[in-house]
């Protein structure tokens, strides 16, 4: 297995280089490259601490819906 993987011919290296050049979607946080926008979106989510849920009463924002629900219970 490793004997096979270690052999890197000139053609293969050339091809990898060309493939690299084709990557268009670059992560704005770490500059890793992806070939599909959806994959970049999934990856970038792991950099962000998304604040997604907003309380309608006081405007406080939460990362998770269950935290918002728990917060709402405090208003009742």
């Amino acid at each position: 297995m490793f004997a096979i993987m270690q052999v890197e011919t000139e053609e293969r290296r050339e091809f990898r280089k060309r493939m690299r050049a084709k990557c268009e979607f670059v992560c704005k946080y770490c500059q890793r490259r992806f070939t599909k926008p959806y994959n970049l979106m999934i990856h970038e989510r792991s950099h962000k601490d998304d604040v997604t849920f907003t309380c309608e009463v006081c405007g406080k924002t939460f990362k998770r819906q269950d935290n918002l629900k728990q917060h709402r219970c405090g208003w009742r």
Partner: protein
Amino acid sequence: MVLTKSRAAPVAGMDGPVKKKVKRSDEENNSDLESLQKNLLGQCLCSMPDSVLRKPFRSLKILHQDDGHGCCTAYIANWSRDRTLLFLSSVQLLCEVALKQNARGLVCSRISDVCDALIRNEHGLVDYLIELSAHSDRFVSFASGRALSAFFLVSRAHVDPRWLDRLTDNALSSSYPETTHPQKMAFSLDVIKRVTEWKDCEEHPLEDKDCQPPPSCHVLSVSDPDSLDSSQIKCLCIKALEAKWPAVVNSFDRILRIYPTQHESTVVTFLGLWEAIISVKANLSIVDTKPFYAHLANFVALLNASVSPIVWRHMLDLFNEVLCYGSTLALQDILAEEPCSLAHLIVRSVKDWRLLETIPYRGGSGRFGGGTGDGDRPLLQKAVLLVLKAVAVTVKETRCESSSDSSVASESEDVDADMAVIERSIREVLRQLDNCVKALLPFHPETPLAQWVVQLFSDQDDALIEGMVCCLDVSVGLFHRENASQDLRRALSPAISLAQFLRTVSHGSDVLLDYLVSNETCFLLYLLRLLKYIRRNWIEFATTCGNELSDIMSVFSRLHLAIERLIARSLFPYNINPVLRLLEKCEQLYENINVQQF
């Protein structure tokens, strides 16, 4: 954080000889620092006279003393340990209040002035804080490190590169002959770790405290977006460390080889820093972090029975972070060389060098007090996840290379041959993993890997879902060939994993929705790939699910409706349409069966 004289705990015996020689003229008078802390907690320094504010900074003077063992300790002249701690915690508090106020855009002008004076190095604070890393009292060294990291975060772009050089030199400064000073090293590495791990918006979502300056405060409004961005100081720290990194790594390599059970806390700090630099969450550029991937292989070789369980855990955490499968590697078409070579090494270590047999499962902290409890389950989870990720990366790399080759020239037979060789290796690795887990935990001998993975990780959702993604990807990667082995196909069956997962979450579609919306797990990736797999292999999936198929499909159907409701109210945080389309297709396939049956 706030330490007052009455609450300060005495520390036994660590600094006895030093205490006798130090005069403590200020011991009875900490009113300046106490007043500073009180005002900082009130978010405003406007009412403090300038003389009181500057007094502690002006009277700083570091003295050195030989501790009698060839080691030089440092302390602040004429200050007691309590006053030193009070001072350090005040500096930390000052910087943290300044950071929070900056983030909100409103800063007390006096707080801002004091920070600016410290950044201009009017009092030489950084040098004092670094010197205190050699204090005979570890609490002082620790508090000094916390104050320094907070200060660097406040300084941001204004940080003097010479400070960072001094800090990294301090990590390697030698006190004993031919070795480094573990306490100083831990200090420097911990400061860099704290800066690297800093999150710019770190307000706890449930924190209700209102920390506004009082109405009487002279408030400055800050609108500079750079004042919120810590990426520059992170980058400067990493750059400063880069030049010293090979020496740092060598010194820990030596510590772990020669004294595997000593200096544990310093080793843990070092491994934690390494992990923080590599981590996707640090938001550092992959180019800047590249040099930190260079020495990983030596440390895989250090995973053996002589290393303590706590060091094992942190090494596994580091390697798991390098193989960031669910967040990154699974999504890339071309994998970087560094994670691939680590994955190969892990695969070889398991297959040829029996890595799994040396896991200190029984010797770990399975129960409090180190009793003969159930064993160290978290350690086993980390090891299993690492092996699954290494296998998934190896398979993915082979597939990527194969697909790229076959488009250059027709080499599909070679590709199949490659994959057959890989499959033999993978089968052996997974066989050993299965044996290891079943020897340590009471699973039925016939339980397939796809099922026990879910049971093993049922208390850790992020690892659970990443483990399921690995099994799914390995399964899809290996079994697209006609002649793939049947036993491995069943061992990795995605349908068995899914059924066990849904039983674990009591078939609750709300749980799945929460996973989709939060970014704490890679569930979006899992669901997307799983639905693609189900669509392509519907018959196999439906047959494996058997009687549970209707329960599984009803969860999907409820999830589908819940997502649609959120989309209709514009509440879904991103474009979920690819998942919705796949859900619809799978539901159609299920309906077709029902139509055929009646």
